């Protein structure tokens, strides 16, 4: 084998890719910009949602407001609360969401308080109306404060310290820092991004150097040179791999930098996800050097395997478009199950799972990112990926030697 030919072809394809806006876009622009754009978008979304929640006041109707003016005033002072007058049945008004909730104060409220009897406030809410729940919370706070004052006065009048009223209280404090919550997200996104870009990063280059070369009618001229078929395949294959690896490095760097610089947003993002029922239990996150090396090492073989695979697929196609239509479904078949496994927090993989190419990469990434280094898993993953890469390259070379694929009329 003539290494000079491999290098000549490799260099040419890289240069060609850099000059192609389409491939440059999928290799550099998308990986760099995708994450910051998503994060800023999420941030804006969360911001606008909280803003709109702030602006929208909940509506409350109060019956017999005059019977307990202090309570009515306290509720009104809560902000975000608008007291509206309703004529007619309050139950119906709440049911029809004319108001979000209604409070009925008994007409003899003052007498009951003065005579130290229990005064019952009736709160009408609707559980399917989200604002109703907010009103309940507001009313509870107001009443509890009112009760404290009232009971304090009553106990004080009897010479008893009101403190005896408080038994156990709970003080909330969130131990998760913004850094940790964004760390959780990074642990989720890094494996997924690596797999996605190991295919998507070099996809256009792979199509361009095979189906694209057929379409432009340059492939036959290339085969007419003394370069051996294996040299041609290796040169193209190395070019595709280089492009994929570059886009992985760019994507992960951009991801990391985004989280560092827009860290707060990471926190609010995971808070937002927590609200949607995802597990956001944070762990202390930092990528250790040996984890970074493993990540990179596994990425290389992942890239080699996928590059050979997409190169093989795209030489079957006669045109750029046709190749794209072959690769997109293949891509989904690979990425979907991996995305699924990646997001299953309780999945306990067995050793044989580490023999499945691509799946093993994600599983390994997840554990090294939390500082678990299992020698068996690491060796199994590398062995599996190396074997798969070699097979993929051999298959690609075979396909590139098939006359029916190259000269189909």
């Amino acid at each position, binding site marked *: 084998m003539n290494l*000079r*030919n491999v290098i*000549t*072809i490799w260099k*040419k394809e890289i*240069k*060609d890719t850099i*000059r*192609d806006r389409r491939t440059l876009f999928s290799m550099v622009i998308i990986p760099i910009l995708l994450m910051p754009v998503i994060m800023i978008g999420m941030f804006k979304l969360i911001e606008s949602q909280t803003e709109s929640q702030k602006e929208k006041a909940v509506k409350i109707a109060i019956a017999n407001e005059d019977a307990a003016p202090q309570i009515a005033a306290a509720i009104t002072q809560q902000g975000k609360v608008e007291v509206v007058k309703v004529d007619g049945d309050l139950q119906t008004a709440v049911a029809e969401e004319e108001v979000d909730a209604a409070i009925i104060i008994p007409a003899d409220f003052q007498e009951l308080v003065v005579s130290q009897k229990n005064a019952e406030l009736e709160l009408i809410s609707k559980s399917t109306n989200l604002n109703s729940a907010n009103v309940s919370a507001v009313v509870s706070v107001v009443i509890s404060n009112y009760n404290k004052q009232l009971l304090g006065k009553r106990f004080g009048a009897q010479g008893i310290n009101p403190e005896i009223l408080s038994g156990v209280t709970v003080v909330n404090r969130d131990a998760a820092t913004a850094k940790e919550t964004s760390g959780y997200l990074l642990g989720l996104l890094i494996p997924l991004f690596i797999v996605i870009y190991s295919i998507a990063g070099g996809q256009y280059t792979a199509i361009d150097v095979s189906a694209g070369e057929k379409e*432009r*009618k*340059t492939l*036959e*001229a*290339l*085969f*007419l*040179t*003394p*370069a*051996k078929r294996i040299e041609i395949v290796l040169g193209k294959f190395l070019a595709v791999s280089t492009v994929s690896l570059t886009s992985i490095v760019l994507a992960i760097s951009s991801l990391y930098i985004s989280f560092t610089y827009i860290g707060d947003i990471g926190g609010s993002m995971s808070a937002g996800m927590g609200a949607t029922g995802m597990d956001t239990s944070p762990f202390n996150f930092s990528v250790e050097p040996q984890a970074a090396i493993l990540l990179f090492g596994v990425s290389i073989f992942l890239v080699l395997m996928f590059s050979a695979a997409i190169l093989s697929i795209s030489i079957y196609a006669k045109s750029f478009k046709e190749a794209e239509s072959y690769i997109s479904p293949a891509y989904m078949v690979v990425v979907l199950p991996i995305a699924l496994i990646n997001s299953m927090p309780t999945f306990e993989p067995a050793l044989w799972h580490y023999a499945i190419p691509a799946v093993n990469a994600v599983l390994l990434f997840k554990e090294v990112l939390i500082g678990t280094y299992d020698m068996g898993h690491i060796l199994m993953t590398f062995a599996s990926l190396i074997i798969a890469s070699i097979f993929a390259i051999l298959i690609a070379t075979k396909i590139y030697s098939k*006359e029916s694929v*190259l*000269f189909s009329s």
Partner: protein
Amino acid sequence: MEPIITVKNLVKEYGEGARAVDDVSFEVGAGEIFGLLGPNGAGKTTIIRAISTILSFTSGKIEVLGMDNQEKAGEVRANIGILTTDIGAYERFSGRENLRYFGELYGMEKKDLDERIEELSRLLDMEAFIDKRAGKYSTGMKQRLAIARSVIHNPRVIIFDEPTSGLDVLASQTVRNFMQRSKEEGRAVIFSTHQMYDAEKLCDRVIIIHKGKTVAYDSVENLKIKTGTGDLEDVFLQLVATG
């Protein structure tokens, strides 16, 4: 005449039974333009691909410069320059960059390659556009780039497959001049075409193929005498009708 290319009993079947080339034999010597003639689908491109080692064949034997083209495929390719029917170029590369890439793959050293590019650029009148991106070339410019590419390594054998189809008069003239010049330089030139008029003007000897079979193999002069016709077009029509 010492043969540069020898094709002996060449048979090529695509799939089962369908013979695209059926027992074709011929020789081409140095300093001649040899016509590989026949209508569309006769089997010309198949024969050329077989000679150039990129297509396997069912049976027969092909030698180029005394080398068996299956045993010494790489060396055979290094000594042949082929202009394919479909011409293409790397469109994001300039003409010069295209030529450099192929020159390197033919194993040329940088200095020789740069000199050769200058020479071909002058010869094919490409100086005005050689440093522009090939994607912007007209058909005529692309054709000249394709010719330059096919002979960048100064091969002793030149094969042009339908080089004038789809070209205007001026561009075809460039191609014809180039073949004439190569012949004078002592190269073996194969000119494949279905246009008998072009062939008659340029070729010394021809082989006429029809449906994969040889219908004639002789000098142009002899064929005219044998068939008693005035030009190659009539020769062809008569041979196909009787053959």
